[in-house]
């Protein structure tokens, strides 16, 4: 868990929304031809995609999130949408190979990828999710590796007010960032923006845009907001260690998992929207004179997961739901060298059409032990 004092070593700068616009402008000139990727409003829905200007971004909306419920209203507290940087880095469908009937490779498949990408306005949890994906995929997955290496700058937007479904302070992935970013900003109010640099590029940006150091009062209200956000979230779940211990103890508690997954229909929405879920199916799309080996997102909650010729390794839904939870909290750390698979973004909860709440599941597992 991040402690506020740790944060206080960073110098803060203050500006207006127009300064944010200038930051973007500066980066555009600095990295000529770069594509900016981030949250953008499309048909009044924030998706993850290419942004051309600040006005594409959801800067004038707030999201209301509850289990199985999402709404945008006017405001300046946009947290998340169902989409995440995963949409760009590991697209839902991507071709990995094109093959001709005599087993020759037809052109290389990913020439068209952008080669310079600035991630702009992604969240602290998103950044942590990218680190998780890196640990699993980088250097192994051709598309991910290529796309990931195209990212030349990361600009973070910190949340100063969590949504009802957020719990990043429990997973230690937010709301503020400590490392791995170039520049971070947070919106103190409708127009005031607090900036901080996370790299030499970040410092350069601050200097070039002539941002002024934040005054005492601004610094104070920034840290107050961070602390408030963290304390709100901390009431939502027990400590991580306790959660993990309880999970470990309950791996074989079939009855518990059956109850927890009672309402789950196995639709897989939680997996798809999760910024760290990376499982794919690979299918052949056969055309007249070639076939495209295509990777498709798959989901451990769907029936397909674990199905093999003549049998099924995870026949019952509770087994697959259990895998989802155990993977996030117990297995990822072992697979990634210590990173938790859950970054506390709450997407799986908001976007479950049945409204199953991950927090509730975790609380129940802990209660089972108590």
């Amino acid at each position, binding site marked *: 868990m991040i402690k506020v004092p740790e944060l206080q070593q960073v110098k803060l700068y203050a500006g207006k929304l127009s300064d944010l616009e200038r930051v973007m402008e500066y980066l555009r000139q600095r990295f000529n031809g770069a594509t900016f990727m981030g949250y953008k409003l499309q048909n009044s829905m924030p998706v993850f995609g290419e942004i051309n200007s600040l006005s594409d971004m959801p800067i004038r909306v707030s999201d209301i999130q509850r289990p199985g419920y999402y709404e945008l209203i006017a405001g300046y507290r946009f947290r998340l949408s169902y989409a995440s940087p995963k949409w760009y880095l590991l697209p839902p469908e991507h071709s*990995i*190979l094109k*093959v001709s*009937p*005599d*087993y*020759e*490779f037809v052109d*290389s498949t990913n020439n068209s990828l952008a080669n310079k990408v600035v991630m702009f306005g992604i969240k602290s949890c998103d950044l942590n999710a990218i680190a998780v994906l890196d640990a*699993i*995929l*980088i*250097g*192994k*997955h*051709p598309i*991910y*590796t*290529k796309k*990931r*290496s195209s*990212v030349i700058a990361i600009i973070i937007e910190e949340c100063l007010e969590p949504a009802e479904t957020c719990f990043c302070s429990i997973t230690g992935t937010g709301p503020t960032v400590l490392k791995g970013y170039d520049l971070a900003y947070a919106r103190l109010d409708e127009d005031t923006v607090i900036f901080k640099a996370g790299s030499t590029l970040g410092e350069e940006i601050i200097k070039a845009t002539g941002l002024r150091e934040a005054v005492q009062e601004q610094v104070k209200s920034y840290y107050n907001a961070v602390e408030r956000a963290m304390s709100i979230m901390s009431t939502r779940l027990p400590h991580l260690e306790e959660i993990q211990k309880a999970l470990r103890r309950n*791996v*074989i508690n*079939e009855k518990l998992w059956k109850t927890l997954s009672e309402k789950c229909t196995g639709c897989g929405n939680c997996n798809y929207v999760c910024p760290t879920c*990376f*499982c*794919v*199916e*690979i*299918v*052949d799309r*056969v055309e007249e004179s070639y*076939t495209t*080996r295509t*990777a498709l997102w*798959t989901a*451990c909650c769907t029936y397909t*997961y*674990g*199905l*093999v*010729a*003549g049998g099924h*390794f*995870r*026949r*019952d839904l*509770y*087994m*697959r739901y*259990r*895998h989802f939870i*155990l*993977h996030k909290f*117990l*297995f*990822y750390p*072992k*697979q990634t060298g210590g990173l938790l698979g859950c970054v506390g973004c709450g997407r799986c909860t908001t976007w479950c059409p049945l409204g199953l709440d991950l927090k509730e599941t975790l609380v129940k597992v802990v209660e089972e032990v108590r």
Partner: protein
Amino acid sequence: MTLTKLENPFTFKRALVVNVVKEAPDTNTYIIKLNETYTANPGQFNMIYVYGLGEIPISLSNLPEHRGTYTLVNHTIRIVGAVTRAVMLHVGAGSQVGVRGPYGNGWPMREIEGRDIVIVAGGIGMAPLRPVIKYIENNRERYGRVNILYGARNPELLLYKYELNKYTVIPNTKLLLSSDIPAEGWLHYVGFVTDLINYVDVDLKNAIALVCGPEIMMKVAIKNLLKKGFKNEDIFISMERRMRCGIGVCGTCQFGHYFICKDGPVFRYSDIEEYFWVEGI
């Protein structure tokens, strides 16, 4: 962030099937020619690609045979579904397939040097264990006594029938066969292969066991081996899960926190004990 340029790991090598050996009504061994010097450990597997249909993990069922500029590899494949059906129906001598590999860790041949070895194979599970036998035969002095326990649902389904007898002439090697059901002319054990564990003739203090077969058979095998006195650390099993990529990116072969494809398929039982008995993990 700097990253080295990545070759597309999904590209395979074009390979020619040079011979097909019928093993059982639903199983063939394909002898495939790779135009390179290819090496693999016993227990490793290749991803075999059939045009337009898909890629499947298949163990090497023999040691790679080097022939100057090329290598012959064996794959024993049982018809079960979409891709294997095509292999069975359409792949014959002269056909092409795509091959990439070898993947996985394979059996710990180095580590088990000097030990007595019990091989327990059920059905198609013999395929990844056959290279072990060949390897031991080639390096006989490095290993102790060897017991091969091999069973199938009926005698017809036993693989490599044409060479099973030859295993008995390997020095210090015992072959015990079983058939789940009685059959005409069957002089061996009738019952489950796991029952044969009772009859193993090795130095239990210095023995290790290598097990491969259907999951249920492996469960019983482990129970029996433990009863017999084998230690958790001395049992190795080859696991199976749905598998798409073979290189640890598709995520579908997870078994607990392990990826079968890169952390396995061979596991030391003591390492996976915590998951092994949890149904559907």
